[in-house]
């Protein structure tokens, strides 16, 4: 498994989200320029996994996101933190929408 998410981007629409599995995993949201605006996970409390987690972002239009990519992953917590750390290593900080949420304890990669 590569450190950075490499799955293909898909349009953040209700139609596309309906195709997702109800499984645990991580995901990224990107704006029209392709920049990652949010990194999230569908954890054990998510009733329909990635599908219901992404549907909420369709409903709320998180951070002007227009596309998403997902990775089915049982180790969603450590993978989520790894994606945040790798984003900070590449861009100097975690994504903009993540910065508005309660802080997540993460370390650093180098």
């Amino acid at each position: 498994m590569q450190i950075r998410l490499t799955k293909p981007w898909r349009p953040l629409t209700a139609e596309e989200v309906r195709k997702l599995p109800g499984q645990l995993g991580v995901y990224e949201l990107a704006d029209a320029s392709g920049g990652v605006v949010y990194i999230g996970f569908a954890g054990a409390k998510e009733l329909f996994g990635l599908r219901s987690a992404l549907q909420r972002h369709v409903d709320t239009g998180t951070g002007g996101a227009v596309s998403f990519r997902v990775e089915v992953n049982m180790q969603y917590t450590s993978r989520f933190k790894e994606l945040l750390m790798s984003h900070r290593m590449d861009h100097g900080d975690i994504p903009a929408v993540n910065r508005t949420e309660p802080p997540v304890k993460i370390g650093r990669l180098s």
Partner: protein
Amino acid sequence: MDLELSDEQNLIVDTVRKFVRNEIVPLEADMDPDASDLDEENHERLSSQVKKMGFFGLDIPPEYGGPDIDIVTRTLMAIEMAQHRAGLYNPCYGVFGGAGLAQLFEANEDQKQRYLFPTLRGERHGFFGLTEPSGGSDPARAIQTTAVKDGDDWVLNGGKIFISGADRADYGIVFARTDAAKGRGGITCFIIDADMPGFHVRRIVHTLRSTSYATELQFDNLRVPPQEHPR
């Protein structure tokens, strides 16, 4: 032989049991089932409570300020501290404090001031770097990481794997081979600061318990000054 608990032991067990039931278990209701951290506010609040109870740093030797609790009582407390969802792998989310890295108790006074005491106070965090891809339980044969003397410094090259907490640590204890001919006797322990050039946390090693993850480290011409050699 009298195997009954003393009144003091019963009181301590009851105190810890109530603490877990009243303070830890309710918080878990709102946490992700795989979470291993309390939020900072609750961690601080509960650590303060534990300090007031006199139970902080249970495993710190009394001469270093630990509460001097005997091993039977300590074991009884451990049983109670594990009675919540994450208790088996992270009892009470660490609010009872830790004891630091054992090697630091053998360090010199200067190193104790800079690493051990801040760690016991919860101000600095260290990692323990022994295991390598070549093995973890037989360091005499497994360790491939080398430390070569260059002037007064030691220069480390190699890597470690399955190292917990290195991505969030301020410093670490690292074992490296300084003399290939001496086998077990040719391995030396170093203290490295996480901001030293040449120290890299390359990736998270994902394990079954997702939140208690480990890391993979790389030392790339990591130069360790002589004062960070443990003895």
